[in-house]
């Protein structure tokens, strides 16, 4: 019976399932034995590395949260970090009630449904952005799991929603993608689609595509935000310093050093927490990288065999070279949008997502490029601003009303989802479930 329980535990272990997916993919691609072995082990190690990063990230985040709590008098606002990889990684790692396994199976079956749909419908797109495949599988699995469904029903329903999402989202964005890239070769495969399309729609209403932001000379050197380590470190240092100053105002230097920092100098403590958080994110991303490096080529190989000539749906930076000015407009207007939304959210008493330069650059940047395609310069400013402004409300709503269940209890302390393509369907399904009293 030991052997039986060994197998049973193994097939509910997320690291093992993902390793198995990589193994199957590598075997189908007819890779040599050494590649199969390395690829499978690297996938499993990737997941374990992710867990280590998550632990470090949350360890650094908790004191920062504690400083905010001490610094904002009772009845004030709560803050959290909006970071998709963080949520899915933490939940998968903690694997409470088998949810981690559900995520891994959803990733596999969701992709199979996507490939089948692309084969039989007219939507010939192959979704290839690895971390987004994983995040959406995670979001939908967590959503259905939070309704108290069994593993079977969670994986079945989440895979169907996930497969439909990966097939329809690139098709939805394609009319604008044609305008941006000037051809019909590539599609958009990133969880930003819904808010990017909002930017394109508003751009059309208020602007003129002829007045393109790309016509003016507009050189800016804000591209160091592309370096994850720098952009996260800078933002987190600012956030931690604000937190510690608020805490010092309320409970004094002695209070902070007694209750929170364990005797360490309060400024040094805040600084080190910010860097600790950043280090945790970098370790997490290294794990994601190892996971994706093995699984994406496998998915690509399988999809290309089944649907020849399909358009690849790719990561958001593929559109950046087509509209570098809009990208910078998005970064600026997106930052403004985040700050204004944060103030309003704090005033109405909802949980406040901390600022994210990743969202301002990658998400509002794409929103601005979509806006520019339909509404020129005005469209770009509106697209970038709206992505962050509306996005921050969606992110806060999902966190405040626990659309995806109690993420904290599942291991993702003070972390929330970012991408609208997971949040908006999530809210719709959650609302329907509420109507039926689930």
């Amino acid at each position, binding site marked *: 019976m030991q052997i039986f329980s060994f197998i049973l535990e193994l097939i509910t272990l997320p690291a093992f399932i993902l390793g198995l997916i990589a193994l199957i993919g590598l075997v189908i691609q007819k890779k040599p034995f050494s590649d199969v072995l390395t690829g499978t082990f690297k996938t499993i190690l990737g997941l374990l590395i992710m867990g280590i990063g998550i632990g470090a990230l949350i360890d650094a985040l908790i004191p920062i949260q504690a400083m905010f709590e001490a610094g904002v008098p009772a009845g004030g606002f709560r803050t959290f970090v909006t970071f998709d990889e963080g949520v899915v990684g933490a939940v998968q790692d903690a694997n409470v009630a088998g949810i981690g396994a559900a995520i891994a199976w959803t990733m596999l079956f969701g992709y199979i449904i996507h490939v089948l749909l692309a084969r039989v419908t007219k939507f010939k797109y192959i979704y290839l*952005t690895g971390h987004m495949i994983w995040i959406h599988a995670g979001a939908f699995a967590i959503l259905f799991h939070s309704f108290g469904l069994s593993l079977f029903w969670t994986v079945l329903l989440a895979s169907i929603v996930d497969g439909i999402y990966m097939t329809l989202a690139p098709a939805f964005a394609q009319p604008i993608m044609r305008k941006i890239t000037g051809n019909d070769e590539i599609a958009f495969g990133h969880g930003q689609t819904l808010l990017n399309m909002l930017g394109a729609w508003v751009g059309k209403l208020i602007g003129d595509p002829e007045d393109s932001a790309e016509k003016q000379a507009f050189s800016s*050197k804000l591209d160091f935000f592309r370096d*994850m380590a720098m952009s996260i470190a800078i933002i987190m240092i600012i956030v931690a310093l604000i937190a510690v100053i608020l805490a010092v105002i309320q409970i004094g230097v002695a209070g902070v050093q007694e209750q929170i920092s364990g005797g360490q100098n309060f400024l040094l403590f805040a600084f080190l927490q910010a860097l600790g958080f950043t280090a945790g994110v*970098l370790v997490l991303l290294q794990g994601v*990288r190892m996971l*994706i*490096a093995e699984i994406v080529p496998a998915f690509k190989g399988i999809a290309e065999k089944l649907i020849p000539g399909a358009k*690849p749906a*790719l990561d958001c930076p593929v559109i950046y070279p087509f509209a570098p000015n809009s990208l910078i407009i998005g970064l600026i207007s997106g930052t403004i949008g985040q700050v204004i939304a944060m103030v309003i959210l704090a005033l109405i008493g909802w949980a406040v997502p901390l600022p994210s330069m990743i969202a301002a650059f990658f998400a509002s940047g794409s929103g601005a490029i979509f806006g520019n395609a339909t509404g020129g310069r005005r469209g770009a400013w509106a697209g970038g601003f709206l992505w962050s402004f509306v996005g921050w409300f969606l992110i806060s709503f999902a966190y405040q009303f626990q659309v995806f269940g109690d993420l904290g209890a599942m291991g993702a302390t003070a972390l929330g989802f970012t991408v609208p393509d997971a949040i908006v369907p999530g809210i719709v399904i959650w609302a329907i479930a509420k109507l039926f009293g689930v």
Partner: protein
Amino acid sequence: MIIATLCGMGFGTSMMLKLFIDDILKDEGIKAQVVSWDLGSHKGQDADIIVAPMDMERHLRSSESKIVLIHNLVDKAEIKQKVMEAIQSLSA
């Protein structure tokens, strides 16, 4: 030979470039290891050729690897031409 592709995160665009280059190398019958890296950690790692988006030029000036900058990340013809040139210049 090691060819490294680069992007901000190290698994989005760089992964896509890696897949494109894998295809190109297969067509040309060239054996090389293609790895995807993030901008933050490429220093301290060894590669013969680094392939990156054009706008990362500033970050790569001090690199000792052969740098290939791609303007249009989805233009396979551009990627092929530039990567093949780099491979030939190294083996020459």
